[in-house]
């Protein structure tokens, strides 16, 4: 097994929301998540909105602090580090957000946006900064003419390339991609995905690829983890996950994706009814039990653990545990 670059251990994140008068609700966004991103791989984190996948991404680079559990980056426990101590690890991490319209400061030029991480990392030499910025822009396929432009003068695809250049300018080794193509047109999406694939190969990057789109996941990922209502329900190699999905939710998800294949009709599909539950901190049982066609009484009482049921194929479902 190759070396692990990032490891989340039993990470839990709770958001407290105020409800009505003085009543509070503790919602579990991420519940006991354990996962590893290995050197040079793309681990996809798939799930529907509100399942906690983006929160997991933010936790993994310590933009959020977990309520419990540990975050180990390159063998160092960064769970409790303060912002000052974290700064020296920040240049090894990058993040690309979903919407390039809101992730770039509208009042900064492309140069300033891409140079910013370097300046924050206290790089002072102006010619060095310029060199690195140009290098980053070149690597994402942007011409140097756009250096002086502002984000609103760029197309969506170009903006996302700027955001990728910003994430890569400090030469990170681990990059969180939070739905990087979800707000782009399909004709632009493919070129961004190809770019991300190429960059990974060129710079030996490791990605945490967060998405709800199973098509892009199948295209870009090496391993896939599926999240549902804050918990990981299945982790496996891409091939075994797509060809032999085990968890009933993964199966339903795969079945729901619309595919441009002649003869595939919605009429003939089995549709998953219901919606994911709100998970409070006193929730018991499998989160998927309510919608699961196979659920029995145990599923409502006990939460199934994530277990390796085939080689490198982990599932959290009572049907597969002994």
């Amino acid at each position, binding site marked *: 097994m190759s070396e692990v670059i990032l490891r989340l251990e039993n990470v839990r994140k709770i958001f407290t929301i105020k409800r009505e008068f003085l009543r509070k609700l503790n919602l579990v966004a991420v519940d006991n998540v354990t996962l590893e991103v290995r050197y040079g791989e793309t681990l996809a984190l798939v799930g529907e909105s509100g399942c906690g996948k983006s929160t997991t991404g933010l936790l993994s680079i310590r*933009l959020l602090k977990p309520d419990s559990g540990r975050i180990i980056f390159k063998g160092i426990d960064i769970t409790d580090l303060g912002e000052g101590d974290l700064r020296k690890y920040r240049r090894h*991490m990058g993040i690309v*957000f979903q919407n390039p319209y*809101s992730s770039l400061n509208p009042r900064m030029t492309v140069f300033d946006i891409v140079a910013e991480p370097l300046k924050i990392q206290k790089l002072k030499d102006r010619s060095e900064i310029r060199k690195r910025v140009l290098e980053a822009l070149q690597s994402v396929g942007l011409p140097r003419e756009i250096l002086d432009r502002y984000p609103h003068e760029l197309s969506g695809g170009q903006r996302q390339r700027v955001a990728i250049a910003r994430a890569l300018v400090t030469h990170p080794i681990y990059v969180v991609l939070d739905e990087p193509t979800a707000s782009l047109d399909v004709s632009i999406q493919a070129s961004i995905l190809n770019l991300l694939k190429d960059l990974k190969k060129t710079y030996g990057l490791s990605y945490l690829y967060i998405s709800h789109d199973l098509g892009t996941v199948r295209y870009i990922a090496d391993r896939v983890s599926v999240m549902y209502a804050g918990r990981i329900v299945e982790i496996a190699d891409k091939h075994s996950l797509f060809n032999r999905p085990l968890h009933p939710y993964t199966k339903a998800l795969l079945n729901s994706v619309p595919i441009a294949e002649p003869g595939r009709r919605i009429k003939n599909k089995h549709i998953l009814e219901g919606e994911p539950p709100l998970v409070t901190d006193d929730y018991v049982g499998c989160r998927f039990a309510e919608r699961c066609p196979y659920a029995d009484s145990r599923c409502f009482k006990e939460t199934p653990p994530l277990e390796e049921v085939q080689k490198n194929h982990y599932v959290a479902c009572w049907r597969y545990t002994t």
Partner: protein
Amino acid sequence: MSISSRLIYWLRGALNTLRLVRQSTLAFSGLCIVSALAFIAITAPYIVPYPEDIGAIVHPSLINKPPSLAHPFGTDWFGRDLLTRCLYAARVSLSASLIVVLAGVCIGTIIGLIAGYFGGIVDEVLMRVTDAFLSIPSLILAIAIAAVLGHGITNAIIALSVTWWPWYARLVRGEVINIRNEVYILAARAMGASSWYIMFRHILPNIAGPILVNASMDMGFAILAIASLGFIGLGAVPPTPEWGSMISAALQYGLDYWWELVFPGLMIFIAVLGFNLLGDGLRDLLDPRFRTGRGVPRI
């Protein structure tokens, strides 16, 4: 990034803004009034027809003369040229108002930034302090300060500044909360940026617009406030010309010498109107719906 290319970009932007200002008649007239007033305020000692009339001087032969060619605004009870005094008073009023507004903007912005960005307990404490200041009536505070420190324009400025900033603190806090959760702020945090860096590099430039609009409108109110303090005798001390105190002095003679009332009043009116028009115009300009961007609108 070369300095010259950035300069060209800025110039282009400035020209573009000017073009837009011209398209809006109101904003443009506001800008004209304000620039004219600013010009007068800066050059007053050199352009007024009778510079010696600014100070304490009496021309017995000219007392309370109605407008004439030699004295278009007439003369006052010491025989001083009213035009000279009205124009010079612009210097006093504008600079005092500017100090009040600037002080308000600076203190308010810093308090608002900190409260809005950090939130939680910091926000609670700062905003309660702000509320406390908001509840102080500025006129009464001015009277109190005058009682302790004596009369004078400086003390009027201090009194107004103390009660002026809370409005900005509230405004800025609201704006900060609006953009605190923007993704580019999160992106900056992901790079390891410190809170101060984020506040001054990312948040401040993006809320400068609304602050500017408010400051421009506020100049009008500050001018009124200075004039009010002057009127009740808590502002500029004679012989320094000041519109409010000029009106107050003229009122002692009833309406017999109307020009001594009308012209300072007219100056206040024009100054307040000018800043309000400019503020309104700026608000329209900063409204993205008013802008014609270079991209195609989303349809």
